[in-house]
């Protein structure tokens, strides 16, 4: 009952699962073209991402930032907005967390770490508020503005990391953050860090906000039918701004985790498009926090296993990108996938 209420029934699960299977099947065609055995290649992919505790840890580490960006996109989407600016928001969050991380020596960890995390979140949130306000008050389309804000974020952080906050080494990066601001490594030598715990908390919080509070009721109402929401006394603009703020804060946590937990510093253009992959993660996870959790793990595994497959077989790592793209297309063409299933059943 609980699950149905949060609109995640077994029927919703069908399309994502089938899409993943079909995408893997399509991927095997490419493996055959390369001249490898698909079964063997996928075995490597699976073993290298889930085959040992260490591999699982690596997969989770790769999945952590995607959980944040996936949830960011999903949250805005629940309010009817398409946040393509997660990439920019995570850069802004990352640079602010790095600045706080390198700035205060001798702060107790109990203060320094939360301060860095919260400052990063606040920065990303405020960054996303700009397109949120423009959308809510002036009706400017958020897709345009979030994309534009990405570029502002790239160049702003470029400047900060090569100018005022350039570290001691020649590379375009800040100094290492103080240990008091670092997210602890959980399973060395992998880079899995306590950011994953933060992600789990965030998933829980997002779930509660969306389905257990009046705020979530209002945000989803605005997303589903803004004119009915307005009739129901819900302020459409207030909820849009709020949802964008929360979305930006979630996205920025991906950057915060990368800086404080993985790299230990802000590196210019460090993100392998985590913000954009987040769109795919949200899509595959059907904009539900639990779905996003599993989708992020899948994408993390593909990345981890893909790198190993590249090393150990003749299959290039680009195969993983093909599979990801196939998944996205199949999930997006949800009706088509459903139709394929239906036809098969009647034949």
């Amino acid at each position, binding site marked *: 009952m609980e699950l149905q209420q949060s609109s995640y029934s077994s029927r919703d699960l069908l399309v994502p699962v089938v899409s993943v299977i079909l995408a893997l099947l399509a991927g095997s065609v490419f493996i055959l073209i390369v001249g490898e055995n698909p079964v063997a290649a996928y075995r490597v992919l699976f073993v290298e991402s889930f085959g040992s505790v260490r591999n699982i840890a690596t997969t989770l580490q790769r999945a952590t930032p995607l959980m944040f960006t996936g949830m960011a996109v999903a949250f805005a989407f629940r309010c009817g907005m398409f946040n393509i600016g997660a990439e920019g928001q995570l850069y802004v969050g990352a640079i602010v967390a790095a600045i706080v991380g390198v700035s205060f020596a001798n702060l107790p960890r109990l203060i320094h770490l939360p301060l860095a995390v919260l400052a990063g979140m606040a920065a990303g949130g405020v960054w996303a508020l700009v397109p949120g306000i423009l959308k809510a008050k002036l009706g400017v389309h958020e897709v345009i503005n979030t994309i534009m804000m990405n570029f502002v974020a790239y160049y702003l952080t470029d400047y900060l990391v090569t100018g005022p906050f350039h570290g001691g080494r020649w590379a375009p990066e800040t100094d290492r953050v103080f240990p008091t601001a670092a997210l602890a490594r959980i399973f060395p030598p992998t880079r899995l860090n306590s950011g994953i715990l933060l992600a789990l908390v965030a998933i829980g919080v997002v779930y509660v906000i969306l389905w257990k509070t009046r*705020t979530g009721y*209002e945000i989803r*109402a605005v997303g589903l*039918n803004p004119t*009915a929401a307005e009739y129901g006394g819900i*302020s459409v603009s207030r909820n849009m701004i709020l949802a964008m703020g929360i979305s930006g804060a979630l996205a920025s946590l991906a950057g915060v985790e990368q800086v404080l937990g993985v790299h230990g510093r802000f590196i210019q253009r460090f993100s392998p498009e985590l913000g954009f992959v987040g769109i795919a993660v949200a899509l595959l996870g059907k904009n539900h926090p639990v779905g996003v959790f599993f989708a992020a793990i899948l994408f993390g595994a593909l990345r981890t296993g893909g790198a190993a497959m590249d090393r150990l077989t003749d299959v290039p790592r680009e195969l993983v990108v093909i599979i990801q793209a196939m998944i996205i297309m199949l999930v997006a063409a949800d009706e088509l996938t459903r139709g394929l299933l239906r036809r098969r059943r009647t034949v």
Partner: protein
Amino acid sequence: MEHILEMKNITKRFPGVVANDAITLGIRKGEIHSLVGENGSGKSTLMSILYGLYHADSGEILFKGKKVEIGDSRAAIDLGLGMVFQHFMLVDTLTVAENVILRAEPARYRFVDYRQAQNTVKKLASDYGLRVDPRARISDISVGQQQRVEILKALYRHAQILILDEPTAVLTPQETEELFQVMRNLKQQGTTIVFITHKIKEVLAISDRVSVLRRGKLMGTRNTAETNHRELAEMVVGREVLLRVEKKPSEPRETVASIAGLTVKDRRGTTMVKDVSLEVRSGEVLGIAGVEGNGQQQLVEAITGLIKPEAGKVMLHGQPIQKLSPMNIKKRGVSYIPEDRHKRGLILDYNVADNLILGLHTQHPFVERYLFRNEKQIDEHARRLVADYDIRPTDIRQIVRTFSGGNQQKVVVAREFSRKPQFLICSQPTRGLDIGAIEFIHQEIIRQRDQGTAVLLVSAELDEILSLSDRIAVMYEGRIVTVLPAAESDERRLGYLMLGGDLHRTEGVEIGTSAE
């Protein structure tokens, strides 16, 4: 007389229901044949079988005496059947002519001959009196005109039998009258028409014969001239129907809502409400009659806070409310049944329980500690209202989108009426509903009135206005032309005023000056 089309012993089952139970129906050449029945009585299923969208489990279809198999809609079109669905199948961005010729384009050297298309469409339109500009874009024309395009599409494909699925549900009374004229023209030129409707008045006005369906069974076919409203209503519903709402004379008390000098612009900046003043008292129904689009919607939205008025005041118990937010207006005891339940009244993808708290969702007992939903209270509230208002199905977790129109409207009515409002605004409360649901909602409105609620009723249906109102205000071009006691109103007089007629020149009929 010969049958152009016969359906014999048609049976169609869906899981759990027999949608059509051995229906035998003959359509005569050149007649207008009405098909009436409540929602879910099997009308649409029967017509879908005829049009090849469903296949009957058993039974046969004869066309001009010969047995035919209608495998898909293409086969139906080839036979000479044309169907106009309730939801139009038009491409918004294309022109009228382009829509008409779609998939049957006139070609010249393998290119579409648009000039010929336009001329053909223009000729068809003028032959049958279907006024519409072939070059206009679908998105720019009214719903009534879009319907004409659908009819043109069928005629362009040489339809001999035209099936109209509840064509009047989306039309204003004036547009309905124009449609009837078109139907008469078509009949005169030999087209056979099957007319599906809920409204018995329309059946009597336009058709030669009428067949009634109830719960998948054919209850009978009558010559329209030999039947009457009461008989048909009973056939449709299966029991005696209260055609006029039974009510006591009103006992109006103090003024609850007063509107003074209200002027409202719509979103495009056109002044839709001009200097309107009205009073609604406790225990009375004030009806607002008028052709749709004369500012009723903007008036109601200004009262409920959805649009801010340009000038004027809305007072509730002497307190101005025109500057308050919709939520604060609700909290002061104003309930509102909006004219469009899909756009305004419901969040179709929310379940029943969540829809039943829309607008109450910030209030005790549905929220605790300012933020958290109290699921137990929300469910209890939903179960109570589902039982009290007989909403079906009774599963409070079901998504409202899957409900019939009547039950969707009951969800809105249940929510708004159960708040014990002091001022209740009902805008087109029974649009698109069947007889049973209309009867229910009318009784509920009168019950509210008798409990001392001030009711403002806006409706394009004159019958509804006349049977429920204690006083009737006529709105024309943004102004209240007059306010009459219901006892001094009748359909003819209101119709005249709604179209801009002058009260004092009504063929010398002396009417007391407007009440109040």
